[in-house]
């Protein structure tokens, strides 16, 4: 059975897909925000002077990083049944990517010269002032492109949210595909939307990387 590409289905499903795309974008932006903030917290906690803090943090992080996002999502949605799926999606995406971004921050923190730490001690700055006024401003400056790249890859993993019934783009695509038996058209369309959105952004990140002298 060979069937031609049905352009009517494309025209018909595009508004639905774009409506879902708004949810996709929302999840990406909020998920990235969670990942950016939590990743920093993890990186700082990983350097805590007490082993009772740093070892558990590192262990949990290693575990989350090495296990599949899909299982984490489905598991979280099944355990926290009373929470809205979109919220679960954003939090789980954020936590999963925080384990990646914390590595970026860690590399940034490791890159701050030792003399800066010693100077802080010599000036008897509190740990809070040391991090806030000296270490982090130097460490965080160069992580922007890496965070951007993670945002792009998170964007491409948002279809996972469809599994826990978040009505993002791929959810809408599947629904339309099932209702009208038009999988070819909707999935091609959804793929193109991903390509059109992610490719220019990745070029932008590459440019930013060059400008920051990586």
């Amino acid at each position, binding site marked *: 059975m060979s069937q031609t590409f049905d352009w009517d289905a494309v025209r018909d499903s595009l508004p639905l897909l774009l409506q879902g795309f708004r949810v996709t974008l929302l999840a990406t932006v909020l998920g990235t925000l969670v990942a950016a903030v939590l990743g920093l917290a993890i990186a700082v906690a990983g350097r805590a002077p007490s082993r009772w803090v740093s070892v558990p943090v590192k262990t949990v992080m290693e575990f989350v990083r090495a296990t599949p996002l899909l299982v984490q999502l489905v598991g979280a949605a099944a355990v926290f049944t009373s929470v809205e799926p979109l919220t679960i999606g954003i939090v789980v995406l954020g936590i999963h990517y925080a384990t990646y971004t914390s590595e970026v921050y860690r590399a940034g923190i490791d890159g701050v010269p030792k003399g800066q730490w010693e100077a802080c001690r010599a000036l008897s700055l509190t740990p809070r002032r040391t991090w806030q006024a000296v270490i982090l401003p130097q460490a965080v400056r160069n992580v922007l492109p890496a965070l951007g790249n993670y945002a792009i890859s998170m964007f491409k993993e948002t279809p996972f949210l469809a599994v826990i019934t978040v009505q993002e783009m791929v959810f809408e695509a599947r629904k339309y595909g099932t209702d009208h038996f038009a999988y070819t058209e909707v999935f091609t369309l959804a793929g193109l939307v991903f390509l059109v959105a992610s*490719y220019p952004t990745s070029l932008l990140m590459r440019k930013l990387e060059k400008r920051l002298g990586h």
Partner: protein
Amino acid sequence: MSDFFSTLLDEFPQVRAGLWVTVEATVLGSLLALLLSFLLGLMAGSRLLPVRGVSRVVVEFFRGTSLYIQLFWLYYAMPQLTGYELTPLVCGVVAFGLNYGAYGSEIVRGAINSVPRAQYEAAVALNMTPFHRMRKVIMPQAWVQMIPSFTNLLIQLLKATPLLWLISAADLMTAVEHVRSRTGETLVSYLLLLVAYFVLAYALTLLMNLLERTAKRRLGLHPGAGSLLKTRTAESAATAGGTR
């Protein structure tokens, strides 16, 4: 709880079969990805613009259009469009291979570029053929550089295999999901599943570290103490953003 474990024991053959499917998809998918990485990565270094162009377009296409969509396209759309149907496992292997092959080609390209220019020139001065030059001088050095990044990619691929559950390939997730629905033990089931994937990921990391050690020894480099147990490298953190 005891109900859960008796059901698990009951379903053990299915769980084992599921584990096998997951391992199969990971191994075959990564082999296809490895093949494509080298093909596309070497094409990217070609002197001919059309060859470079084809590689660029293929890589950006498969990196840009989300693995999830590619898998669903192969599973749902291709039979509708061509009338030709792949089994779920083959769909998975092809999608993983294409997607991660595209990412991997960037690793190959970067590693080849990172071999010092003088090595090239020396090989040319020794009158080596281009093939010989690549095989004996450039590739052994580039290969060592590639392994840590390939390890990351392999773990990513393993972590993508639960997607098979969505296209009804009977993988590990499908099997454990079945046990869960029979017993209603949600938390234990998913924790067990996470631990299983963690163990698999750790085993793969260990194997890749062994491979790295062998490759380094071939170059006469010291692998360094404790490198076998590490789960990531400094390089991987630095390039993680770039390989995406």
